[in-house]
């Protein structure tokens, strides 16, 4: 079987999904079920004190017994804040080590701050975390994250939440060719073809949130993404035909045509 292996654990699904921006927990649950994802990201936030005491919590809807919960550091702009957030996440999830590190550079672009990301990754790896790192699509940055012990690198396809698809497939290709840990495209996927293209390039997986949650029918889009990731992976493994820009080649026999005279 063709499995995604991250930090020694194998997963049947190569689609990882976020849990934000849904209408309610019921839609979250149905979309994530339809996506077939086994790894789901969550954010860590202050609890509302004295409010909604009986409201269900996200982890009741998505139990850690069923899903691999991947806590993120969304909203962190320094290595220190990211490390603090993930220490809390580890305590919250009973010692769970697999985490998504993202350290943002500015609030407009949500582009990753790579020096802070590298600093945070160094600390987290030393503390025993298994770090999946959101990063720019710079092959050197991806390699450095791998060298300092990250279990996966997750370059952006385009800006978080932009739905602009893969803006630089060539950089992704270099990263895929040069990095040995899994490469997952994280951020920028807009529709199913974007996910398929990422997988056809040879990515090990795709992580997305907004493309599903902000589709007109999120559950249906979740299913579309599941199929796209599977189709893209199969096409990658099958090995596409060579592109021949100046050479047409008929698929039907050129002999035995009825209009040919004897």
């Amino acid at each position, binding site marked *: 079987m063709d499995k995604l292996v991250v930090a020694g654990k194998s997963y049947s699904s190569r689609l990882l999904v*976020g*849990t*934000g*921006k*849904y209408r309610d927990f019921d839609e*979250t649950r149905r979309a994530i079920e339809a996506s077939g994802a086994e790894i789901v*990201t*969550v*954010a*860590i*936030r*202050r*609890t509302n*004190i*004295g409010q909604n*005491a009986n409201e269900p*919590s*996200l*982890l009741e809807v998505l139990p850690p017994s069923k899903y691999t*919960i991947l*806590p*993120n550091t*969304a909203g962190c702009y320094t290595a220190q804040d990211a490390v*603090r957030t993930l*220490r*809390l*996440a580890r*305590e*919250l*999830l009973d010692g769970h080590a697999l985490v998504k590190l993202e350290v943002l550079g500015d609030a407009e672009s949500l582009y990753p701050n790579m020096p802070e990301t590298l600093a945070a990754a160094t600390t987290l790896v030393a503390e025993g975390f298994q770090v999946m790192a959101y990063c720019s699509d710079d092959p050197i940055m991806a390699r450095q994250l791998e060298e300092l012990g990250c279990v996966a690198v997750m370059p952006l396809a385009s800006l*978080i*939440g932009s739905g602009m698809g893969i803006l630089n497939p060539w950089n992704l290709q270099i990263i895929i060719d040069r990095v040995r840990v899994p490469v997952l495209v994280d951020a920028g996927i807009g529709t199913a073809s974007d996910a398929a293209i990422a997988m056809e390039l040879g990515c090990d997986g795709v*992580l*997305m*949130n*907004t493309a599903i949650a902000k589709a007109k029918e999120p559950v249906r889009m979740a299913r579309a993404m599941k199929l796209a990731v599977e189709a893209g992976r199969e096409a990658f493994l099958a090995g596409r035909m060579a592109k021949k820009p100046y050479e047409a080649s008929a698929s039907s026999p050129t002999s035995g045509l009825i209009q040919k005279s004897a």
Partner: protein
Amino acid sequence: MAIRITLNGAARDLPASLNFEQLLEELALNGKRLAIERNGEIVPRSAFGDSRVADGDRIEVVIAVGGG
């Protein structure tokens, strides 16, 4: 003796130096899946019964929420 702490960024008065189990009860958060930080350091769940909040402590109580 009453104490004042900073809880999730806001000042809060407590009737006494409670332990963390009592604090969660006071906040109607007991039994919830959450994590606590005191002055930048994790308070392990195993220490909730023994560890006490002190006057001036900065306490963060966090949960998992939807995110990407």
